[in-house]
């Protein structure tokens, strides 16, 4: 039985509903040596800023139970080097590209979106309004992230939408009481989709040295440890949104991905599990197809939000 895996995520056609989470796949080329990355529904690139960024001082990463904490701090090559050095490889391969962007103000996001569209640098924009690692950990409190304030989510979304005709997805933070509020704010401001979730804030202390494990003190928790939290947020948001959701948070297998689709995600992203298993996203695609065959589902879209309560 032929199975349709193609989905339309707010105007972005993906040949299957599987992408990778920004920051877990660099700019694609690194993992193309392990599998053909053009098989992905889309490649979501590491956050791009106008200027290159060095990121935070090390140590930046530590393993945690069923996951990891990171405080990379959006180290990236910047938009110019991306367009010049990284993009040609992805285009040559025929990849569908989600361009993840990060800026300090709405105008910077708008500028990045404009550049990506003008130079064919992406097929959709994902606005990272939720990186937890670019603020001073000693002062970061509720509201420091754009995605913690619905009115700012709306402001940023409007600025980006005004700058580009590409589909715009807004990536939101789980470090909030009610995910529905910023998700609705994004939708009302014209977002074509939301990406849920970014990492959960966490930290670690070395009891022997009594010092924080990460130089930044706090970092973002990812991996299967956060999957139930992410799933619940996708389910919450799906009940209230008309626009599609890209679900992510600890997805390692097709069974994990199916949970997000059943909860209401139109597409999913494999995140930090790619670090352990570089072709994890490909295995998820293959597993989703097998799932559909096993359940005699001709079109995966029939399963979006199909949890039976």
């Amino acid at each position, binding site marked *: 039985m032929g199975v349709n895996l193609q989905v339309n995520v707010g105007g972005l056609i993906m040949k299957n509903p599987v992408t990778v989470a920004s*920051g*877990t*796949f*660099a700019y694609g080329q*690194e*993992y193309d*040596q*392990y599998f053909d990355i053009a098989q992905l529904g889309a490649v979501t690139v590491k956050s791009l800023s106008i*200027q*290159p*960024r*060095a*990121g935070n*001082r*090390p*140590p*930046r*990463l*530590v*393993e*945690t*139970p*069923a*996951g*990891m904490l*990171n405080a*990379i701090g959006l*180290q990236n090559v*910047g938009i110019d080097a991306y367009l010049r050095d990284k993009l040609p490889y992805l285009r040559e391969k025929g990849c569908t590209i989600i361009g993840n962007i990060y800026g300090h103000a709405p105008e910077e996001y708008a500028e990045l979106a404009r550049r990506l569209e003008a130079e064919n640098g992406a097929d959709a924009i994902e606005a990272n309004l939720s990186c937890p690692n670019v603020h001073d950990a000693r002062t970061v409190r509720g509201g420091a992230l754009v995605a913690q304030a619905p009115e700012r989510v709306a402001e940023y979304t409007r600025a980006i939408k005004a700058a580009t005709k590409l589909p715009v997805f807004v990536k939101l933070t789980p470090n909030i009481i009610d995910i529905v509020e910023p998700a609705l704010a994004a939708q009302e401001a014209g977002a074509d989709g939301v990406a849920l979730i970014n990492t959960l804030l966490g930290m670690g202390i070395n009891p022997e040295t009594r010092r924080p494990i990460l130089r930044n003190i706090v970092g973002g928790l990812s*991996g*299967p440890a956060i999957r139930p939290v992410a799933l619940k947020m996708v389910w919450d948001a799906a009940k209230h949104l008309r626009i599609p959701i890209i679900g992510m948070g600890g997805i*390692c297998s097709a069974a994990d991905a199916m949970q997000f689709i059943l909860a209401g995600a139109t597409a999913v992203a494999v995140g*930090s599990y*790619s*670090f*352990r298993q*570089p072709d994890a996203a490909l295995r998820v695609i293959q597993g989703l197809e097998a799932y559909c065959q096993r359940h005699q589902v001709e079109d995966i879209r029939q399963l979006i939000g199909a949890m039976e309560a």
Partner: protein
Amino acid sequence: MPYIADCRITTHQEVAPEHYRLVVHAPQLAKEAQPGQFCMLQVREGHYPFLRRPMSIERIFADGVSFLYKVVGEGTRMLSGMSQGQMLNVQGPLGKPFPRESGFDRYIITAGGIGIAPFPALADALKRELGKAPEVIIAARTERFLLCEKDFRQMGCKVHFATDDGSAGEKAFASEVLKRLSPAAGTVVYACGPMPMMKATHAVCAAAGAVCYASLEAEMACGDGVCLGCVVEANVEVETERMVRVCKDGPVFDTQLIQWESY
């Protein structure tokens, strides 16, 4: 190009308390591996531990490679419980190898503790390719953790010992023994060990005008340049390029590149 494959464990033995030698059957990997490169080992299925464990390649054989490791946490503890005959998922070879350039007067290896791990392969390659058996400083807390002496002697290496407690060789740091060996311009020193040891080694080499390459260690998620978690700070003029990845830009660095003040 790195491979990912299930490899049979052909030997797994405790060589000192909490220290193990693990040999895997991996012909393709062995064919491409160079001294100083490493592999990412998946200690078990499931989500705990979540990440692979980076391990220096100790020896490169025709049909496989060996690793020498110390149990430092739960991941290496689980690994140490694996038996000969079991399959281990191995990703590698990864990272940049030790440069092996001819034309130096002296080749000196200096290792602190489990930092000895990448050096049997290097000494073997230097001997075979350049006809020079390097001098080797093996330093450890105490005598029973001085590893690989026999391997180096078989290759014709002159071996110097240093221990923290004086139980074998000099009661001294590796860098102090190195200093007494009088490295100079025309000497190349290869170092691996705790950060303070490599920092001191760099200082000795810099003062003597010797070239020094160090193999660094860092917590890493991917091992292949993607996660940017394992960076160290480098002496690079462009501020936005000062973070270098231990996994991909290293693990072997010319020690002049590293900002040792941070360590």
